[in-house]
């Protein structure tokens, strides 16, 4: 075991995978010699050579398009989109190509690629470095969508994603890279080295895609969250002193519906939290599923706490980010209903 930040955990996952399998290649903007703007690929080019870890032109459609071709050949590309906000030029390649190659060719060709992308806000990144586009992926059949909330999961899930036979969108909440940020932006963040989930095995292990984890057991209300919002929800539950059960989805597609249904059936109340905008967000899907499967157990309407339906602002970051205050008020609202 070693203490790792989420950056180190992600890097370790690629390192372990490249060590075990010569077909794993890593590329993207600035990922080669420099090691990526968040340093997630630091040292990989020096260790594995520049034909297995290299810099790409600033062309996301080119990065994803070539990765698809490499996967068709038999490689397992794990590429970095520098910010999730930059994935739009590649969206055609992701949705109409990567997601459908297995289906349309009846398995004649497949597309085992991983697209890693830093997601979410909290770093004063403004409109183009703060977005959470996960719902644009969960709406696409043929993709898998993973959002880890801590170093241990990040490594195990990234290894599972690289080994997965289908395309995986791996969204890394960038505000969690260095610590379990709980939304209290005015307080210092505890480093991962002081957190249980910062303890990460150095070797190979994987966490199955499609399994949620209960981060805080409780009986009064279920909070469904993923990524940064897991830590915000945990803080809100503590601060409001509410016996909330906090579910960390870890993967959005496929979704661990059983864990959700078991929890909400038990608590009868549910709050869905995400950083992305509200309308047609992934929370809408979660809310619909909860009412379809738990309607007769519900004591109160399901409440969503999300980013506002506006572009991500710069100066007003903390009025936009759904922090523990807003989540706490939603918990109280659901408990009173």
């Amino acid at each position, binding site marked *: 075991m070693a203490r790792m930040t989420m950056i180190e955990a992600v890097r370790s996952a690629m390192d372990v995978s490249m060590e075990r399998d010569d077909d794993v290649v890593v590329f993207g903007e600035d990922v080669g010699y420099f090691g990526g703007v968040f340093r997630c690929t630091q040292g990989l080019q020096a260790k594995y050579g520049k034909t297995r870890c290299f810099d790409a032109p600033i062309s996301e459609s080119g990065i994803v398009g070539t990765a698809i071709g490499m996967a068709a050949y038999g*490689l397992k590309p794990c590429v970095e989109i520098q910010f999730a906000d930059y994935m739009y030029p590649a969206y055609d390649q992701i949705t109409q190509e990567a997601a459908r190659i297995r289906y349309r060719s009846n398995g004649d060709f497949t597309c085992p690629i991983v697209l890693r992308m830093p997601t979410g806000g909290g770093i004063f990144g403004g409109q183009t470095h703060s977005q959470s586009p996960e719902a644009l992926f969960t709406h696409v059949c043929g993709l898998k969508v993973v959002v880890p909330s801590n170093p241990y999961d990040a490594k195990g899930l990234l290894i599972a994603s690289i080994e997965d036979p289908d395309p995986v969108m791996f969204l890394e909440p960038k505000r969690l890279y260095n610590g379990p940020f709980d939304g209290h932006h005015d307080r210092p963040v505890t480093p991962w080295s002081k957190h249980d989930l910062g303890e990460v095995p150095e070797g190979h292990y994987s966490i199955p895609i499609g399994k949620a984890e209960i981060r805080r057991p409780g009986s009064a209300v279920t909070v469904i969250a993923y990524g940064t919002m897991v830590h915000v929800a945990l803080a809100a539950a503590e601060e409001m002193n509410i016996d909330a059960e906090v579910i960390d989805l870890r993967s959005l597609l496929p979704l661990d519906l059983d864990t959700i249904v078991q929890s909400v059936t038990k608590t009868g109340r549910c709050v869905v939290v995400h950083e992305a905008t509200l309308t047609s967000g992934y929370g809408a899907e979660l809310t619909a599923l909860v009412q379809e499967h738990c309607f007769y157990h519900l004591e109160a309407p399901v409440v969503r706490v999300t980013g506002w339906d506006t572009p991500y602002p710069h100066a007003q970051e903390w009025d936009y980010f759904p922090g523990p205050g807003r989540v706490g008020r939603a918990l109280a609202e659901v408990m009173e209903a």
Partner: protein
Amino acid sequence: MTEFPQLSLHVPEPAVRPGGMPDFSNVNIAKAGSVPRPEVDAASEDIRDLAYSIIRVLNRDGEAVGPWAGLLSDEELLTGLRNMMRLRAFDARMLMAQRQGKTSFYMQHLGEEAVSCAFRKALKKGDMNFPTYRQAGLLIADDYPMVEMMNQIFSNEKDPLRGRQLPIMYSSKEHGFFTISGNLATQYVQAVGWAMASAIKNDTKIAAAWIGDGSTAESDFHSALVFASTYKAPVILNIVNNQWAISTFQGIARGGSGTFAARGLGFGIPALRVDGNDYLAVYAVSLWATERARRNLGPTLIEYVTYRVGGHSSSDDPSAYRPKTESEAWPLGDPVLRLKKHLIVRGVWSEERHVQAEAEILDEVIQAQKEAETHGTLHAGGKPSVRDIFEGVYAEMPPHIRRQRQKAGY
């Protein structure tokens, strides 16, 4: 008052519209045999002229002339002719089948048969094409079974793609034919990635990318050229310029550039322009490009100058946007007739044998169609299962899709 006039927008127009006299005087045709054949390691900047001329081998008298001639034996040329005739006969029958309601949609190659048939000959087993919808000659010339193609077109119970894809969007890894998307230009850059993978693995296989004149306007085309140029990928970047993108003439995508081939020059990619209706020229240029790729010299861009004689698809009526007689005026002639004439000039073919071959080929196609139809057509007979809708979205079916399949009653 300004010293400059008011601005005005330039919208290119084709030379002629329906009702007018076809006019290809703007197509500058080089004399057969006149374009030099450089060494395969020539630098892009030293062979710029080849992006603006047209490499041709067959002259008006049916003779093969010049430095690009002499690469194929009579026997190989006879096979080439036969493959083009098979593709043409296949198209005619399938277009008829579409009109008869046996499938929803069809796209033919009429006038463009030489491009994919001759190119296939320059490839080896294991190489990979990333084709568009008008390169079925890659399959025909590789002896992919016609029955399989028809099963796919009819979406019947033996459809290798289980009814999931539009007709003619074939897939065959075994025959070096990547699954056709139906989306445009996306596969151009994928071919570059496949070629990069081959180079990463120190393999010997090469890739071929395919695109039409219209789709070169897509950003994926540009991405593909950047990546191919940067990493010197062993890929052939093929542009089939058949003059028409549905109803839009090639000038709309080409803009102010002299030729599509010239697009490669800015990337330092050697670019050749070839008579796409000349089987010998297409083969010679393809071989030159594949040799470059195999010798790790990097990508080559080829523009095939040809003409789409038929409609864009079975849903298209070209008489609405171009003169009906335009194809007859096309100055590069018909690829089948030109190769036929060459073989007759060489004394290895005759009108009689051609007619006989046409009958044999028609019989081959009819037999294949009969067999395919025993497995069903789009609206009659055997068809893929409803279960096939739900299978194969992922390697392993996730619970939510399983629930939906059960809901559908399967």
